[in-house]
């Protein structure tokens, strides 16, 4: 069941017909006033349609409009990229310098700091005598001893009792 307002709107738009139309017009208290209002509404509608309608574009204008939009779209993308590039701190020279500086710090730390931090390991940097022997037939009373002088970083193998030789043996 339609309300009065729905029937009124449909009547103004000329949508009612047949029995619905006759019943609605019979229910109107003042049919002449209603007819006048219907005529005014149609005039207003026609006026609005003619004045506020979107202007139709010609082919030329439509093409220009499309072109302008495309140019705007394309020119806006690289500018965003350019802004992105300019704003980063990590340029290639800076990356190179940072890498080099890091490497230098690593080398300094490795070569100088770590090596000097382990004095306990210094003994392995002194020459070590693993074993020594003299021919017991040639030098039966010979003895060998060894010592390291850490201050001078010299290792000495000391022999005693080797066969003495004449000065001629000092020849080059």
């Amino acid at each position, binding site marked *: 069941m339609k309300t009065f307002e729905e029937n009124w709107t449909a009547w103004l738009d000329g949508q009612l017909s047949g029995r619905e139309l006759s019943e609605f017009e019979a229910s109107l208290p003042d049919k002449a006033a209603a007819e006048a209002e219907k005529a005014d509404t149609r005039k207003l509608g026609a006026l609005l349609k003619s004045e506020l309608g979107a202007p139709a574009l010609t082919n030329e204008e439509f093409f220009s409009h499309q072109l302008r939009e495309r140019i705007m779209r394309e020119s806006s993308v690289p500018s965003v990229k350019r802004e992105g590039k300019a704003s980063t701190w990590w340029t*290639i*020279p800076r990356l*190179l*310098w940072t890498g*080099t500086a890091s*490497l*230098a710090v690593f*080398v300094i730390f490795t*070569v100088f700091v770590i090596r000097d931090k382990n004095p306990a390991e210094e003994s*392995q*940097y*002194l*020459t*070590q*005598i*693993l*074993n*020594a*022997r*003299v*021919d017991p037939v*040639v*030098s039966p009373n010979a003895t*060998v001893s060894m010592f*390291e*002088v850490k201050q*001078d*970083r*010299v*290792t*000495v*193998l*000391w*022999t005693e009792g*080797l*066969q*003495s*030789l*004449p*000065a*001629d*043996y*000092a*020849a*080059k």
Partner: protein
Amino acid sequence: MGRSLAFLIPFVSLIAGVVSGGQAAETVWSGLVIAENVAQPQAVPPELTRIEGSLKKFFGYNQFQVIGQSQKTLKTGQEDWLATSKFFGLHVDAQGESKAGYVLSLKLYKEKELLLETDAKLSKRSPLVIKGPQVGSGQLLLVLVIQ
């Protein structure tokens, strides 16, 4: 950018050189030295300058003369060589490289007679001195240094 690179490349090369420097081939100097006390001592040979003070302190002589020597550049750490004088010969047989230096097998000969035999781990920063036989009024010393 160009100027930065010109500065950067030698700098990086220098660092790379320092890093890889520990693995470069090294030269071992082996010398037969006669230590004596004389009135007018001659200058110490350049190979012994580094340990001149130690030699004088330990052995009590004022002159050190090289009567035989050899300089060997080690590449594999497995080389062997001979340092000779007229009567003495020092045979050195390198038997491998370690972090600290080279393992060497040393044999001192008087002509063809083996006088002394020793194995040592020669450090890159620490010379080895061996006291040999008395020769006349002096002393035969064997010195090994990584240069």
